């Protein structure tokens, strides 16, 4: 049901029945290792190219999610996913192997929540019984496309972020199977593209913060809720700088959040001493942290209600070179248990 200007409420409570998360070596050394299903100790993962490894991550995550629910690809109506590589080939190639009817999404790093919102919408209104949704990214494949060759000795400024190698997939269904308490989605707010004129591709957090703030404000306006309703508000990959900027922006707009209840996936994922500069980023960042870590925490009773706001910077290497500013977007999905 449409609520307010840009939000949906899912009254039938689509359930996230199972999840699958596959990550690379760098993430395995981070904070959340215990929450991941498949861990690779090599960036190549036995493939001949990083792009193939990228595809493999998503496939493994999808297969794990299906296996945990005892489902076959045929039982799943739709597969909604995306990544950052040109023409989202890793995702489409994975969809070729999965043989599930497929929607390819591109929302940069916000793809995970875009997919979850759409999947919940479909399931809520009977458009599907089971939908597989997720997002993935691979550090070396993304660096190769957006930045410099991985072996190039360029210095990254402290505002830069580290692209996550990982894929997170969730199975959204209208059939919770047994009596076990499972997390379900209750609402989603679709963001609009916001461009505040920043153009530095090594400071994405700062560019994306206004989009996150805009979507969070819209969410509370549309659903007539208060920030205290949520135990935790998590942003996708704002990093240190973006998180602080977003907090300050929200405060300026009259919405003060408890900074202990406002976290960022890019900061949760890595240890303090890992050289990720401002934090993690990439489509896989919010996907691995939500489908791996946060849902586990919810099942363990740490949180009852969370709002996940995944942010995306809709740039390409071409637009950066043409001196265009960075348009950004954010989508929010609320999950309760």
């Amino acid at each position, binding site marked *: 049901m449409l609520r307010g200007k840009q939000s949906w409420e899912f009254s039938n409570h689509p359930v996230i029945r199972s999840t699958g998360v596959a990550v690379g070596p760098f993430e395995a050394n981070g904070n959340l290792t215990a929450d991941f299903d498949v861990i690779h100790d090599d960036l190549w993962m036995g493939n001949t190219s990083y792009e193939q490894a990228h595809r493999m991550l998503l496939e493994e995550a999808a297969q794990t999610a299906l296996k945990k629910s005892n489902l076959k690809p045929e039982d799943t109506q739709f597969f909604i996913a995306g990544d950052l590589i040109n023409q989202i080939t890793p995702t489409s190639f994975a969809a070729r192997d999965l043989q599930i009817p497929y929607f390819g999404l591109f929302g940069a790093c916000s793809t995970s929540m875009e997919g979850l919102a759409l999947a919940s919408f479909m399931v809520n209104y009977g458009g599907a019984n089971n939908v597989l949704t997720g997002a993935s990214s691979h550090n070396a494949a993304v660096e190769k496309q957006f930045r410099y060759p991985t072996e190039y000795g360029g210095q990254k*400024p402290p505002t830069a972020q580290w692209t996550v190698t990982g894929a997170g997939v969730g199975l959204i269904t209208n059939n919770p199977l047994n009596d076990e308490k499972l997390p379900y989605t209750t609402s989603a707010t679709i963001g609009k593209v916001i461009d505040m004129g920043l*153009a530095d591709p090594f400071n994405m957090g700062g560019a994306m913060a206004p989009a996150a703030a805009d979507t969070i404000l819209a969410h509370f306006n549309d659903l007539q809720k208060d920030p205290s309703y949520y135990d935790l508000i998590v942003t996708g990959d704002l990093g240190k700088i973006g998180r602080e900027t977003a907090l300050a*922006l929200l405060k300026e707009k009259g919405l003060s959040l408890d900074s202990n209840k406002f976290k960022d996936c890019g900061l949760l994922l890595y240890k303090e001493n890992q050289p990720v500069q401002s934090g993690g980023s990439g489509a896989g960042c919010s996907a691995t942290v939500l489908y791996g870590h946060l849902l586990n925490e919810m099942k363990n009773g740490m949180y009852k209600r969370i709002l996940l706001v995944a942010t995306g910077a809709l740039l390409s290497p071409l637009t950066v070179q043409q001196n265009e500013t960075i348009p950004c977007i954010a989508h929010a999905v609320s999950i309760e248990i």
Partner: protein
Amino acid sequence: MADSKKKNKTPKQQQYAKFEQQFETKRPVLKNCIKAFFVGGLICMIGQFISYLYIYFFHFTEQTSGNPTSATVIFISMLLTGFGIYDRLGQFAGAGSAVPVSGFGNSIISAAIEHRTEGFVLGVGGNIFKLAGSVILFGVFSAFVVALIKTIFLMMTGGL
């Protein structure tokens, strides 16, 4: 470049740019410069050492030892790039490892290694100058202009 960007910005965007800046982690310029100084200086000192080796053991004079020296430095840079050390050195030293010829070698070699998955002709061949191409282009063109002006000047003044 920066000016043209500013012109297109709305007042709201300019205001945000200022607002955002207070949260940005500042680049540690002094620390970076010290690191660049020591690593860059060290690379040049190693280069000096290599050139003395060429003078001492081979038939090179101070004038002619420059070429084999830069070739050797580039060779070392290839090994460091291939073993995945140079990118870490680059993150530490910044311009200290980018400005010496080893950095020029690194930009060529890293691009060549990166694109071998696309094949040797289209991948390696097509991308090897991805980063170094601009250095070569502007180096050659500016040298052409400078040499042309200097030659004409010398001809006019009768120096040639």
